[in-house]
């Protein structure tokens, strides 16, 4: 392990310096310097910048015009912007839907496909196919089913003038869009879970079956607890994806109106002419909501490293 010289400790113990030539040090500096610089400059510093800007008034044009606003932007959002609460409600419904419907379906599919039922290879591909499509393409594909002269309205036998407006009608749009989102999400969860299941010792399950456990008991008492790390990641992904939802709603409504969700609300307030730091405050709220899942994820992934 002597060769695993710590570059920091190196300065303290000159004895080890012979392992690093001057050239090596420069190489190492470049190796971590360039990526770290880029990452900090384009991710972390801007993130901090947005957090600071959310406490200011600014139109986003001249840096000299930035004025301190305190929590005015947040006050404005919480007390004077009813659409924020609408959007938050939609995001919460979205999370609940993913959590109780889409994710369990993905897990169920993974569990059955893992048992290698006939045609499992085909099913795996079929369910995973939507995951590789971009959300823009997904939006167009589903529009084909749901537009006034589309498949579903045709099936219902409605003429165009009486057709159900699945995206325009508030009674339907959230459900329709969540089904579209689930179309991708279920395949993704299935794949993650499938990989986890493959790693589980098969003898565990055999033992449970020999002991006379039913399938449901085997899953609940044996497989599910053994999948703890994957379960945590699946939950985190479910929440993060629900909060990140943007593309699909944007592509359907063209960034104006439609179903209010936080991702689009931020976009409306930061891009284009209407730029104000209220948008920054929205982005910070979105960030605050994602902190818990992000930390949970990091804890799960770096458990061994830290201890």
């Amino acid at each position, binding site marked *: 392990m002597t060769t695993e010289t710590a570059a920091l400790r190196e300065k303290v113990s000159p004895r080890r310096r012979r392992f690093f030539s001057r050239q090596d040090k420069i190489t190492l500096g470049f190796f971590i310097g360039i990526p770290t610089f880029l990452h900090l400059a384009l991710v972390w510093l801007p993130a901090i910048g947005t957090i600071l800007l959310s406490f200011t008034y600014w139109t986003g044009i001249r840096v000299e015009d930035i004025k301190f606003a305190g929590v005015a932007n947040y006050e404005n959002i919480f007390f004077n912007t009813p659409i924020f609460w609408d959007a938050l409600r939609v995001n919460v419904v979205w999370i609940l839907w993913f959590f109780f419907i889409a994710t369990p379906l993905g897990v169920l599919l993974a569990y059955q496909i893992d048992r290698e039922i006939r045609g499992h290879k085909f099913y795996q591909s079929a369910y995973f196919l939507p995951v590789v*499509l971009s959300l823009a393409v997904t939006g*167009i594909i589903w529009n084909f089913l749901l537009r006034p002269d589309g498949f579903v*309205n045709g099936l219902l036998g409605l003429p165009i003038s009486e057709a159900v407006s699945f995206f325009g009608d508030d009674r339907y749009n959230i459900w329709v869009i969540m089904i579209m989102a689930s179309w991708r999400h279920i395949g993704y969860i299935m794949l993650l879970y499938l990989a986890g299941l493959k790693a589980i010792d098969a003898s565990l399950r055999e033992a449970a079956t020999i002991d006379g456990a039913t399938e449901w008991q085997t899953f609940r008492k044996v497989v599910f607890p053994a999948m703890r790390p994957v379960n945590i990641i699946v939950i985190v992904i479910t929440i993060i994806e629900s909060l990140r939802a943007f593309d699909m709603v944007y592509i359907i409504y*063209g960034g104006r109106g439609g179903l209010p969700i936080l991702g689009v609300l931020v976009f409306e307030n*930061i891009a284009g002419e209407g730029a104000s730091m209220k*948008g920054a405050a929205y982005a910070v709220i979105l960030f605050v909501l994602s902190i818990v899942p992000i930390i949970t994820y990091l804890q799960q992934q770096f458990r061994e490293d830290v201890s």
Partner: protein
Amino acid sequence: MTTNIKVPEFPKRKKKLYAQDIKDRFISAFIAIFAIVWVFPIVWTLWSSLRPYKEIRAGGVFSPPQELGFFNYEDAIGRMELPTYFANTALITLPAVFLTLLFGSLMAFVVTRYSFKLNVAMLLLFTAGNMLPPQLVFIPVFKLYLILGDLVGDRRFLYDNHWGVVLIHVAFQMGFATFVLSSYMKTIPKEISESAMVDGASVFTHYWRVMLPLLRPPLASLAVLMTTWIYNDFFWALVLMSTDSKRPITSALGRLQGEFVTDYNLLAAGAMIAAIPTLIVFFVMRKQFVGGLTLGSTKG
């Protein structure tokens, strides 16, 4: 004694297996039907893209087809300028994937092979950065691109330029690549590195000649995964570019949807064409794709 216990249990067990068999068939049928429902939207769009829109206008969605062919595809390529948008996509995706893998492997190499006190902290920072909502960084990045553009005397130096989009992708995805590659590198025996260093290999040789060849499998998986993600990205090209003819195909589809709303089947052909590269990646390199996703499993 033992036979006495086993005998009455035998028929009961058989019955149970039989019940399981019926249940299995039921589940298989359910999964099969569900799978058909799953691919149906794609098949339907494909079917519609082969028909002229005016037929549907005239006879409804279920009218029997009179004309079938690839005319919508020919039209889409010509009228939607799809080749231009594909070229734009390539200009963004290829350098972004290459730089992400390069920087990710450099970071992972240093972090796992040369122990710093800051190693875990750096990895944490990179991985967390990858998970931040893109909206959180947008305003300052946008401003920064404009300021840098003014500094070099060309407003379109990074803003409205494919290099600007490349850089932001690299900065974000690097975190994921570093995380995946470093967890892979931890499984490579340290002795390999030690013997390289004992032999007097420089840091660069150690990276280039010793580690990089060993990293081929995760690099292949990551390349496939990153290509799909960056190809499918919608947000960055939308907000960091203002000239429409410079946008990649995924972002361009949004505008085309508004423009070609009167000929929806043409749009279907456009969407199908836009999906082809990812479908090829999916069918040809599915193993790498799945491998990459499950190596780190953050997002999709």
